[in-house]
């Protein structure tokens, strides 16, 4: 995790609900080593910010409006940013299996304790 000392991990938030993005931003940036570089509320928003902000990690609402249906959900993201780490965040705990099978680097259900989001972020960043 030596990279953390050099520059913060750039995180892009994608969730259709403003309150969720706002809470996540507050939460993640408290850590000091993460920096939210953009927020997207739709799939096309997400693609735009992916290209513009060059993030390391996307915290992606698995139910984000406008994404293709499974199992193609991540293909537009991979097309634009093949090396990006994707952490799927979902209100549906059962989505874990398909999210990981489709290539998400981590999965956190919205019913889990919030520190699991940080854990997933650290874990994904370790793999960068």
């Amino acid at each position, binding site marked *: 995790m030596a990279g953390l000392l050099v520059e913060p991990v750039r995180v892009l938030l994608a969730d259709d*609900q403003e*309150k969720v993005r706002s809470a996540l931003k*507050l939460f993640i940036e408290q850590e000091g080593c993460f920096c939210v570089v953009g927020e997207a509320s739709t799939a096309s928003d997400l693609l735009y910010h992916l290209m513009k902000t060059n993030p390391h990690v996307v915290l992606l609402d698995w139910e984000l409006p406008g994404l293709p249906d499974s199992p193609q959900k991540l293909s537009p993201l991979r097309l634009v940013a093949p090396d990006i780490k994707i952490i799927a965040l979902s*209100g*549906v705990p059962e989505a874990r299996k398909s999210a990981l099978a489709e290539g998400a680097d981590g999965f956190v259900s*919205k019913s889990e304790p919030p520190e699991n989001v940080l854990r997933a972020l650290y874990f994904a960043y370790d793999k960068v």
Partner: protein
Amino acid sequence: MTLLPAELNLADLFAVIVDAVVACDEQQRILLFNKSAEQIFGYTQDEVLSQPLDVLLPKRFVEVHRRHFAEFAASPVASRAIGERRPIYARRKNGEEFPAEAAIVKLQRAEGRLFIVLLRDITQRQRIESELRAQAQQAAVAAERSRLARDLHDAVTQTLFSVSVIADVLPRIWERDPEEGRRRLKELRQLSRGALAEMRTLLLELRPSALMEANLSDLLRQLAASVNSRSGVEVDVHIEGETELSPEVKVSLYRIAQEALNNVAKHSNASHAWVALTTRPADNGAHGTQVRLVISDNGCGFDTTISKPTHIGLDIMRERAAAIGAQLDIRSAVGAGTTVQVEAVL
């Protein structure tokens, strides 16, 4: 007719029919009992020959069956279907009753009249039909449940997740910047109240009778808080007048407000919406109450002359209004917000 043998052997024919065939004379004494009848009823032909038809019926139906049989015998009709509309019940040798459909035919013979009953055991069919009905019912319940689950996920889960994330980080924020801490605490309070409103709104969908019991102004305030929590649109509610409305009117007005605010949240891109309910005695000294419900927003509006699939909701609102004799008026223009107004004298 030349194709048929001079004397058709009925017993040979009946032997291959899958339905039970029972022939009897005018006194209802059994004269013939085919193979299928033996299988269905559990008697051999020898056991029932010369016995009255009654042995094949539940005891409680014997009287009424005798009457029907006599009526049929006396009537000019040659055949009659039995149990088409609702099944009749027959009785097996072991006493077990089973549902059946039957037909009866009478033939005039030189020796007297012959009655032939064809009977089909429909136990299996009824079982399949009731299984299919149960499956359809379960599917409807499952569909409704998954809709509610989706709504719960879209609404309450998101809000509570935000609450839990902010609560987690709040102590550290407070240490560093108490002012920011207080702001976030206020946000927490709003979010948790919103989650409560969303949950109560969804509970109403699980128990629609609660809609009829509740007060319309309370319902509208709760709906507004719920829409605000879910979509972020500020919704002001203004209530004027305190007239009790009938349950049908209350439910219809609530549903119209719900549909209109759903449209605001989904399609309008509005930052603000207003709900106004006014009830007062009707003008001109007429009896009754004048009710007006107005839902408006500052969103993008739409061209009311163009019909879009998303406008189905508007038709539903119109139908609901018409059902209580109310007038529904929708005004909108691109870039100028939308106003839905329902008005009725009740």
